[in-house]
């Protein structure tokens, strides 16, 4: 009875304050954007599912990056290297599967390992040498970009394969490229969006259902207290950045499939978009607070905003400026009123 009582009490408490909860605040921004879309629906274009499907497809790669970014930001860190690791793995994936004719499954596994290793390395530098995450991942950002260019020779790795005699021969991309690019459920959902959702679920299980996720929250909330409570702070940080690297690799493979090539210049400034999406969702840059569904809200907010502006034929210049306004507005909305 007492147990039930206290559960009820806690439910009451949360329902009273629900409108002030981070989820409600983040949803507020999304709803405002959505209502704007309904108002400026570009002759009904916004009311068609196809528009929403395309929006989801467009944000999926960013969304996958945001999953890893969420883990890292909750742990109290930041990961600036996601865009570069995306480019590195995109190049590797194209190189392995198109040029080297390595089996697709092996190519995928190889890329996932490369991405994870990059993240693990950042995490190790951060926890072993106590270098600030900003600096350590900045270095990884530069390094991974350099490596992508080195491996690709500065060229896009496309279906044009150079032959021994110097001529180029066009080959077909492996089936998996087309698969990732296709749509399922009678063309109503893109495969990349499905991959993004799977990444969300993986992150959610990791953060909420597993001990390691709890440790990530603890480290972000108070690293010293966590350490003195026996939390293996160093390993958990390595794990968080490693997970981020893994998600970068998944995003990189999707990016390569969408572009039908591995571009060493891909993913420029994607880290900033990913950070913006996480922050708009309401995950605190100070660490310790936030969640993966908040990040989904953040991803959708930016995605819808861009889509609404583009279907109303607003130029990129104005889109960028408006996005900036939305970032500030969304974060203001989340500020706790005194």
């Amino acid at each position, binding site marked *: 009875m007492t*147990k039930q009582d*206290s559960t009820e*009490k*806690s439910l009451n*408490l*949360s329902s009273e304050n629900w409108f002030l909860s981070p989820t409600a605040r983040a949803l507020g921004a999304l709803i405002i954007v959505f209502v704007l879309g309904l108002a400026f629906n570009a002759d009904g274009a916004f009311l068609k599912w196809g528009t929403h499907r395309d929006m989801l497809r467009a944000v999926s790669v960013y969304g996958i990056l945001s999953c890893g970014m969420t883990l890292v930001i909750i742990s109290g860190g930041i990961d600036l290297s996601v865009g570069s690791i995306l480019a590195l793995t995109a190049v590797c994936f194209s190189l392995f599967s198109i040029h080297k004719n390595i089996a697709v499954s092996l190519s995928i596994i190889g890329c996932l390992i490369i991405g994870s290793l990059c993240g693990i390395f950042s995490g190790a530098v951060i926890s072993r040498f106590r270098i600030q995450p900003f600096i350590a991942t900045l270095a990884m950002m530069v390094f991974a970009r350099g490596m992508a260019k080195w491996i690709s020779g500065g060229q896009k790795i496309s279906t044009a394969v150079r032959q021994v005699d110097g001529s180029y021969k066009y080959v077909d991309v492996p089936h998996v490229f087309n698969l990732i690019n296709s749509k399922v459920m009678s063309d109503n959902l893109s495969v990349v969006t499905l991959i993004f959702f799977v990444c969300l679920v993986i992150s959610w299980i990791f953060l*909420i*259902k*597993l*001990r*390691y996720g*709890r*440790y990530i*929250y*603890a480290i*972000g*909330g*108070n690293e*010293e*207290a*966590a*350490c*003195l*409570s*026996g*939390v*293996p702070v160093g390993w958990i940080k390595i794990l968080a950045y490693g997970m981020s690297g893994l998600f970068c690799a998944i995003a990189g493979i999707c990016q390569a499939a969408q572009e039908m090539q591995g571009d060493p210049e891909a993913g420029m400034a994607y880290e900033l978009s990913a950070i913006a999406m996480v922050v708009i969702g309401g995950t605190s840059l100070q660490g*310790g*607070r936030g969640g993966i569904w908040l990040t989904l809200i953040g991803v959708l907010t930016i995605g819808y905003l861009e889509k609404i502006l583009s279907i109303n034929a607003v130029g990129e210049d104005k889109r960028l400026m408006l996005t900036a306004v939305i970032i500030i507005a969304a974060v203001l909305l989340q500020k706790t009123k005194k």
Partner: protein
Amino acid sequence: MVLPLLTNQQVNTTQLLKMTGIHKSFSGVKVLSDVQFELRAGEVHVLAGENGAGKSTLIKILAGVHTDYLGQILLNSKPVRFASIHEAAGAGISVIHQELSLVPSMTIAENIFLGREKSCGPWLNKKKMTAEARKLLSEIGLNVDVTKNLSNYPLTIQQMVEICKALAFDCRIIVMDEPTSALTDVEVEKLFSIIDKLKKSGCGIIYISHKMEEIYSIGDRITVLRDGAYVGTASATQLDRDKLVKWMVGRELNQQFPRHKSAAGQVRLKVDSFTLADPAGKPIPAVNNVSFNVHSGEILGIAGLQGSGNSELLNGIFGTYGTQNFGDFELDGRPYKPKTPANAISKGISLLTNDRKANGLVLTMNIIENTTLASLKNFSPFGWLMPKKEFKSAAEQKELLNLKAASLKMSVDTLSGGNQQKVVMAKWIETRPKVLLLDEPTRGVDVGAKHEIYELMNKWTSQGIAIILITSEMPELLAMSDRIIVMHRGSVTAQFNFGEATQEKILRAAMGLQMK
């Protein structure tokens, strides 16, 4: 700053401040109702009450933090209503918090004049500020280099600097919120002599403290609040301790320190020639060749002034500083070596640190999450968390420790000090420790909760747990410890059995004086 000395006659009659009929609610919850308070020039007026009694809220109204309240404030017989902290400060009210509001990376002089720099046009007049800072500090009898960074000086000096800052702004009303919570006895003496000087110069001091000794050695009058209501005001000489406690808790605590002597069992932890280099890198070791035993069911008290190394000793045993230490340890007869906190916890040693906000609690997490943090492996087979089991354990601990919280899902930063401390204790008891290291377990905790913590310590020792206790409150140390060892500059200078020690003997040993 030269304040005219007031005659005794004036001291007793000049009314600096009168607050009447103060009401205040937070989102519908009444926290103050019809509270009154009066402060005269040249007096130390103690504001007493348990945590959550409304003392801080009253002070925050006075300091201009809370601006929406009902009631009247008369300052020098003129009605005032502060709209901001700046207005209150401008009217001569200064609040010295437990957490200091100073900038450690700036010099002492810069700190004193922060926000009101002396300047010549756009140029800072450094010479003048240095000279005035020096004069102010020498007035309160402090000899330090004002051009050095504040971070070079210990907490006590920093606190004095904060007081000087108040004086530099010609403050007539100084609020001190538990100013001695981080000070050692010698430093407290120094603070009290400064308070005496402030009194003589006509300042009124509002003093908040949980320490009985202090309340009676410094207070002229005492006002007690309980559950947001005014209980009464009396002069310190007329209100004896029993009555004060009765006023504060609304019931009589028959025994202030209820240590039931429990039979000490076998040796739990044996420490032999433990030496630990100073964690901050000073050449003298923080702990120097310390040896002791602690038995199951025993409370071993460790006395020492700030810098004696007693806190470092506990942290060293726990493995906070890693493996950089020398000495032999035995835990229940088996060799033990401090490596990491995680290792210590798995072996059955737990450490309650002396600063729960800095390194005890994760304030962003709720009560359940904090309670299970140190024993999370028991709640997550194969890494998979079991929320129901966590909830059940936290609910049991809540019951056992008499934790007062509306819900276990409440964030811990909304709890009062005593309840926060209970959450930290729940966390450590959940690890099923054999040896419990307690570093200042009652710091910043109100009288009622202190009593409960003593009872818990009794219970744990009766279950066979060995406790090592550090506390800067001498009566608590004397009453609760079965044995006491005294440390001075990293070495043990004296040992006492229960009943042998007195405050004077301990203080002599703690200051490194030879025993007679």
